[in-house]
């Protein structure tokens, strides 16, 4: 115990950071720019998350949606769904919030050097993936093709319209979007995200597929990827579970023998393939 005591951490104490910018994205999602004390960089990896806390309203794990290549501030995209997230939506620039982290297993983009990148994002799943998308865009020459598939329930739920417009214009990015249900103005694709996969022409061996979305999405996307013959080793997922502590103690996020907050949220697909509870 004594020697371990030297490494003991006050795991549950947040750092008080500042919200430096707030942007309304949709009716239920906002983007927050967060600046750590002393403007220090968070030093995160794409795909990692932080525990955001507001005293009296609790804590919630939120993915970092900006790339570490931009900083020192970082971005969070938050959907208002409950105690903490509703309250956060009421906060303005200048407000203080608590941050613990970064936590969890993120992507190691160096490992993908030279590969074609296929991003498949459903709904708010674009937020965590955006950190990696931005990373690849900032180091554009390190990667091959960049393909982004993005699906939402309806056009009103589309996140990051500014970025999306840019991506659509950029010739070195293949960006395809779909909605489950269109409205009058919508002129793009209609249909679930899996309908975007079969038409793709891919160099499957060289393509890294990353998938983030609501729980129901994974099973079907994985089936489509299998249909495309993308090897399992080329697939990465980011999973979400109920989570309290973020540091592998509270037990809530456990999927079979793995802790999402430690071994995830980003998983190499072969690691979770055998886990019954994963997808």
């Amino acid at each position, binding site marked *: *115990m*004594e020697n*371990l*005591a030297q*490494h*003991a*951490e*006050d*795991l*549950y*104490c*947040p750092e*008080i950071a500042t919200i430096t910018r707030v942007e309304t994205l949709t009716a239920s999602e906002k983007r927050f720019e967060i600046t750590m004390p002393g403007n220090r960089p968070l030093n995160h990896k794409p795909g990692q998350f932080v525990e955001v*806390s507001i*005293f*009296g*309203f*609790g*804590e919630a794990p939120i993915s970092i949606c900006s790339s570490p290549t931009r900083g020192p501030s970082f971005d969070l995209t938050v959907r208002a*769904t*409950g105690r903490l997230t509703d309250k956060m939506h009421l906060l303005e620039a200048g407000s*203080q919030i*608590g941050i613990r982290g970064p936590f969890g297993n993120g992507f190691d983009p160096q490992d993908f050097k030279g590969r074609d990148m296929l991003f498949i994002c459903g709904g708010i799943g674009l937020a965590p993936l955006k950190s990696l998308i931005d990373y690849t865009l900032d180091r554009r020459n390190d990667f091959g093709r960049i393909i982004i598939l993005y699906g939402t329930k309806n056009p009103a739920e589309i996140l990051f319209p500014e970025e999306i417009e840019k991506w659509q214009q950029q010739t070195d990015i293949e960006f395809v979007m779909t909605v489950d249900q269109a409205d009058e103005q919508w002129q793009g694709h209609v249909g679930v995200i899996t309908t975007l996969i079969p038409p793709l022409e891919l160099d499957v061996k060289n393509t890294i597929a990353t998938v983030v979305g609501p*729980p129901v999405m994974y099973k079907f996307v994985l089936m489509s990827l299998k249909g495309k013959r993308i090897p399992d080793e080329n697939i990465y997922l980011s999973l*979400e*579970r*109920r989570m*309290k*502590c973020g*540091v*592998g*103690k*509270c*037990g*809530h996020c*456990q*999927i*079979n*023998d793995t802790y999402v907050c*430690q071994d995830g949220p980003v998983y190499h697909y072969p690691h979770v393939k055998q886990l*019954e*509870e994963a997808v």
Partner: protein
Amino acid sequence: MNALDEKLNRFTKYKISEQTLRKFIDYLKQQAPVFAPHHNGEASYSYECVENSAEVVLSYPRTMQPLKKYFLPPREVLLNFNIKDNTFSKPEIIEETRIFFAVHSYEMASLKRLDYSFTQGHVESNYVSRRKYAIFVGISYTPDESHFSKSVGIDVEETEGFDLFLLPVGDGYFLLEITDTGKRLVEGFPGLAAPDTTEIKTEPLQFKSKIKYHHNRLPAVFDHVYKSKVWDKYAEICVGCGTCNLLCSTCYCFDIRDEVDLDAEHGTRTRYWDGCMLNTFAEVAGGENFRGSLARRTRHRLYRKFKYITAKSEMLHCVGCGRCSHFCPVGISMTDIVNDLITDYEEKQNKEKI
């Protein structure tokens, strides 16, 4: 002489009457706070801080809450905060010596498991601060219908982790010096005669509850029973009360909640024991529940005891204390589930052979 006796006989030991033993407790109380089993109501026992050594219970089946309550309190304030000015403070945890007296071997073994859980990956200061200076005095016990620690490899007389150990003999006890800390405590106590040299001969104790296989074989069993029907069998009568989780000596899952004072300004962030048998444990936004059925919850609980952490820590995370069986309101016994799983496993193996 069997291996166990051989081991026990290597320790320096003293013969001590029950009366002197209670004086020894009084002496220990002068050194540090002492915690020991007490009666709690008509038929129940709990560890309490000793005020009167005469009230310490030396012979008891098991306490209700395990010793973990002193290292991971059932409710613990993690932070005190102020909403208005966004400040917080962490309640100070006094790192003091505490003596835990008349502790059973499975309990000591469970702390070893908790030590693992709270120090692998991130080392939690709250746990470590409480655990650091703890001293343990063990005692042997007579297994009742729920104990099965022998089946998971823990002898009644297992001394690992203890500083001193008590073995009943005749109308008194042998007091064994296990560590230097224990030795120092004994040396300071004036009431003891010279070390005793009679040989210890333990009687093999009979456990009424047993697992059919040697514990080494259990991980293999659990490799094959994930889809077993046994889960459904117990899910039919399990009511999901979570008792088995909360009282388990190695379960450590928790929930965290913020509560605000009536001034709407001050408040606390508190953690509470939680458990994977509870319906809400794995529920997320939108009401999706990743382990909604009792069968899946029961399976998760057992896999956590016998496989998931075991594979990493190389220790079974069930110590056979029998709390989950004894306190289950519908009488579900841990050994029954495991033995049913073994039967199922055997049947499957046989089928494969044919």
